[in-house]
């Protein structure tokens, strides 16, 4: 089956490539420089892979063309993409954040304590705000370790990776909190025009942060800091602040993802919420074309990267290949993505 998928994608690639090129070449072709072309080509590669996988499924997977399948696949990636957006920002500075799963757990542990104990809309509102702020605080902690104490990002964030989940368990006494609070859970279970609200929220965040990276001062400083930190510092870029903001945003987004995660499950278990999400997020970032060495941030790429990984898993499952084997294929895709990145440098 896997072999078949492979040959199929090879066959479809040129055709899709053409159409994609026509689409991107729509603006004045004369202005298209190598950079633009390159960036588009780099982005195209991921888009082509994704489209090829969709096409494969349309032909070979029964019932693929349905809103339900769409919703299932999309809701599966929501938390990974939201965490992945933050991860993209941190990776753009040349860092990495291993503590996102722990941030999710902390936020997920706090929220039910708020809306279960404080009645009315006030409790719901607080349950959205405070846990995200608590997660953001974790990010500030990470950022200070990285900037003030110059701890390597992977080590700095390992601290909360280990301790964060423990904190969440201490807060909840290690017990599972089950609930049924539709007003709160609407963030995950609500639907707008048949599409889950969490999917729309995810897409909105992708658009927002893609804009932040491209158009704002912070976005530019982020790429400059990651691209050449020494030069950035000598040019007056507040590199420490930029990094601090990146880690804080990353943790806050993880906090939000934590809220969605517990809403989906109608329960919060500090042992489980966001478990392993850091690796999925990093994988999405890598497959999405953001260099792990820093200086680049493709938010859209991270969305596509997450979708590729999810769709691959779905495809394999739909064709009767066990999840355990799917993990191996997932690893293979990450290796391939990083390899392609290295070659195109």
């Amino acid at each position, binding site marked *: 089956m896997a072999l078949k998928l492979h040959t199929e994608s090879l066959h479809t690639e040129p055709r899709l490539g053409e159409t994609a090129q026509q689409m991107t070449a729509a603006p004045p072709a004369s*202005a298209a*420089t*190598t*950079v*633009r072309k390159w960036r588009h080509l780099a982005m195209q590669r991921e888009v082509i892979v994704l489209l090829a996988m969709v096409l494969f499924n349309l032909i070979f997977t029964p019932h693929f063309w349905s809103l339900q399948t769409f919703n299932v696949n999309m809701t599966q990636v929501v938390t990974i993409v939201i965490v992945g957006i933050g991860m993209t920002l941190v990776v753009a500075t040349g860092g990495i954040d291993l503590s996102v799963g722990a941030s999710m757990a902390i936020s997920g542990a706090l929220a039910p304590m708020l809306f279960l104990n404080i009645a009315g809309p006030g409790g719901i509102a607080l349950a959205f705000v405070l846990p995200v702020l608590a997660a953001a605080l974790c990010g500030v902690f990470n950022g200070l370790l990285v900037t003030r104490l110059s701890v390597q990002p992977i080590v700095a964030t390992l601290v909360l990776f280990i301790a964060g989940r423990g904190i969440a368990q201490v807060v909840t006494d290690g017990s599972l909190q089950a609930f049924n609070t539709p007003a709160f859970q609407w963030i995950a279970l609500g639907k707008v025009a048949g599409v889950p609200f969490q999917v729309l929220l995810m897409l909105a965040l992708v658009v927002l942060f893609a804009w932040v990276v491209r*158009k*704002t*001062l*912070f976005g*530019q*400083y982020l*790429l*400059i800091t990651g*691209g*050449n930190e*020494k*030069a*950035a*510092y*000598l*040019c*007056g*870029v*507040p590199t420490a602040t930029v990094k601090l903001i990146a880690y804080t945003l990353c943790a806050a987004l993880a906090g939000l993802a934590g809220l969605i995660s517990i809403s989906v499950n109608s329960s919060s278990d500090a042992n489980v919420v966001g478990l392993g999400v850091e690796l999925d997020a990093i994988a999405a970032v890598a497959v999405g074309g953001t260099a792990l060495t820093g*200086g*680049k941030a493709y938010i859209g790429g991270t969305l596509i990267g997450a979708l590729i990984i999810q769709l691959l898993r779905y495809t394999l499952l739909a064709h009767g290949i066990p999840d355990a084997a799917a993990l191996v294929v997932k690893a293979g895709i990450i290796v391939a993505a990083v390899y392609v990145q290295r070659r195109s440098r």
Partner: protein
Amino acid sequence: MTESGKETPHSPLTRSPLLEMQDIGISFGGVPALRSANLSVAAGEVHALIGQNGAGKSTMIKILTGAYRRGSGSVRFEGREIDFRTPKQAREAGISTIYQEINLVPFRSVAENIFLGREPRRFGLIDWRAVQQRAAALLESFGLQIDVKKPIGRYSTAIQQMVALARAVSSDAKMVIMDESTSSLDEREVELLFTVVRKLRDDGRAVIFVSHRLDELYALCDRVTVMRDGQTVAQSTMADMDKLQLVTRMLGRTLAAVVQDDAEAREANLARRGKQMISATQLGAHPKVSDVSLEVHAGEAVGLAGLLGSGRTETMRLMFGADPLERGSLSIGGETVALKSPQDAISRGLAYLTEDRKAEGIVPELSVRDNLTLVCLRTLAKNGVVDVKKQQAIVDRFIASLGIKLRSADQPIRELSGGNQQKVLLARWLAAEPSLLLLDEPTRGIDVGAKADVAKIVRELRDAGLAVLLSASELEELTAVADRAVVIRDGRTVAELNGADMSETAIMDAIAYGSDGHSQLAEAAQTANAAHIEDALEGDRHGA
């Protein structure tokens, strides 16, 4: 070339040469890096190899150690024709290299580092006791008593250098190459290291010593080979070549070729200059800057002269707030300031073009547009959102006014030539509308045409009323732009040469001897009379 490699020393080699490199040539991408370079080193001597940046010293060493393959010429070591393909082969043949960044393993013990890869074994296992005993004995023979079980990273750079030397000795190196080994050591440590080097020499080993500190060369070396533009321009015993001759050969200026026609223009410029923009008083920061004082006024260009490693870059970094100031004071626009960061300096109207364009200048993957507006980006943002139209306008303006050649502003800056990259970086600072420019080697590594362009731009900026402080290894380039020069040597200001007093000769004089003494030479230089200079040199030679 005015001088040729044939100018061989008066004193013939008393010993047969251990190493003989003849007519070495090599090209990189069609550009010759070495053309008929020679180097001859005897066993039992310390041989100085000197030259400016890009003169070909490192290339020569890399060919010798097998990192590069030579294009032409011959290399004989111990009388045999050799052609190393890898550094390992050179090591095995007995040529050991000690780099500035020492290649030791910081977390392993001193003893392990000395015997790394060659550990004495017993029954197939490493005999640690033997390792430690032999290491301790070896270091003791250098007069060094340290705990060989401690990680090497805990010791000072000087001790690390000596451990590296010990490693070379223990592997029976016949020749040790020391590349800028002393650049991060203080005086006491240098003396310690020299004791060891002399011991190696007395054991009959050959040492090639690369350094830019003239005093060290005279203190340590027996003979010297001077390189310039990929050629050997002089070989001599140290005793037969005084400092001024050495500097002259290195910088490629003959004393007679002093031009003075700019003097009037410089004087006129200095008379016109505006108020003082920056004043540095007795700046100091360990280890490179010990006592530097200088001031720059609006509308003048001041040259910061000195050899490589004399503290030019470090001085500029102190003035820009990039490194913390340990001693001395700095005033900008008449107000004494304590700069906390470059950001501080920028907000006070300073700009700093770094020497190392690649490591500290460009953001390689970003576009020319993003690179050019890096510093002024802050002013282009409204509520945190960058005004793209304003940004493009600035980019277009500077691309046109500085004549930057590119396909598009969207192009990543790494695709541009060195000269165009430098113009983008210059534009980056000019876009922030500074009042004082610190330019560290603005013409380094760019082609001749771009050099002329950069010089022209700097002159125009000065005429527009900016204060400019610039350094350049090439004195010709310095005197072409600067109205006066401040000469630093080993982190100290040793001379200030104004207007008509500034000439390449006078600068070289100051570099070689410092401010005190040899005014005879400076006077001779002022009259630009070759005969006088030669006379002065003669006198000096006898004096030395």
